[in-house]
């Protein structure tokens, strides 16, 4: 068992330090790059918090849709092949819901301020 603080806490404290103490003192192109860097750390924070739950429910849905077991990568490969071949399509019960939920879970990590995501969440 690793000691504390947790990775979540460490990433957050670094991002907050850069945002609150360093960013105001940086100008020009490096200010832009620093902002991208802070965004990356915030993304990592969200992924550390959300990935496990999202992956588990994605895997459960994929197993139900496909009727087979496997790693998340294998299951996504199998689903992709079945969509490409036309064996599964938007008429397939559960497929659209699965793609929507999976995509919403990705946006929650990647880009929670993206306009389409906020609209679909019903918050904008």
């Amino acid at each position, binding site marked *: 068992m690793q000691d504390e603080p947790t990775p979540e806490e460490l990433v957050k404290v670094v991002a907050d330090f850069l945002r609150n103490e360093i960013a105001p003192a940086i100008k020009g192109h490096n200010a832009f*790059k620093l902002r*991208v*860097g802070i*965004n*990356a750390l915030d*993304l990592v924070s969200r992924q550390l918090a959300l990935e496990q739950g999202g992956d588990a429910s994605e895997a459960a849905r994929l197993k139900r849709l496909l009727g087979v077991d496997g790693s998340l*990568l294998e299951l*996504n*490969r199998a*689903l*992709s092949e079945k*969509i*490409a071949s*036309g064996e599964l*399509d*938007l008429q397939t019960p559960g497929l*659209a819901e699965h*793609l*929507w939920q*999976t*995509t*919403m879970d*990705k*946006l929650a990590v*990647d*880009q929670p301020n*993206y*306009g*389409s*995501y906020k*609209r*679909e969440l019903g918050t904008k």
Partner: protein
Amino acid sequence: MIEEQLGRCVASWYKGASGVTGAARLSGGASQETWTFDIIHAGGVTGAILRRAPPGYGASPGRACGLDAEAVLMQLAHDAGLPSPRVLHVLQPEDGLGAGFIMQRIEGETIARKILRDEQFAKARPMLARQLGQVAAGIHSLPALRLPKLREMNSTKEIADLEREYHGFGRPRPVFELALRWLRAHDPGPSRELTLVHGDFRHGNLVIGPDGVRAVLDWELAHFGDPMEDLGWLCVNSWRFGEIDKPVGGFGSREELFAGYEQAGRKVDPDRVKFWEVMGTLRWGVMCCGMMQRFRQGPDHSLERAMIGRRSSETEIDLLRLLAPREK
């Protein structure tokens, strides 16, 4: 050092030029550079832009039409009265500056967030969609006989290209598969009319002033194809920057865009535009995945590239909104 080279070059064709000043690199990767500088002459200063592949970088990769063709296209657009900078000089071997050209610098804004939010563009925003419709129609009407040699594209080839590129990444994406399937099922086939297509007609390549559209830049992806491609690409949600209810660049409606286009004497096929919007959304998604590849494999191991890789999911939600909208 580049100022000395530019100074020698400019003196050879600009009457009364005594030198150049203020040279600064604007953007570009290893194989293509954009520089801004001022030409000093008896009458004052003239703003100029150098667009070049530095010495040693001659060949244009894959889809790019090449800098010589870009120069010809910009000059043709300028001569036809379209918002396009005048080409001042095409680089010659004796200039020692590589391949490329020097054009007039058009002042204005290319950053979408400023164009969409800053007060100085408030009067321009409601006019832009219609203006861009007229500009697109002008581009599509340039006389084919005078155009340089360009690759010819159609929707079927484009689907196959995107599929090959996406499969090359080796990572399954069910939403992309759904989009490819939709594109094949709705492929309208080759357009009856083949015209010049700008190929990257969107924010970032449009210089906007308080008075409206001032210039169309970056003809790198120009080709012959379906003119509706330019209109569809302009409507892709990735270029709305949060203003998702204004499909044209976050500032206007399809109706305004189409009205401007038809006002200039050309016809719009809204189904084809929709098809190219879906294609464009997938294309930007595949491009984001490509950024991630370039980040991981080099040579561009930059933070920006890495983070653009995490934007491909934005195109997945947009594809679902287009192809499998949820009832509200």
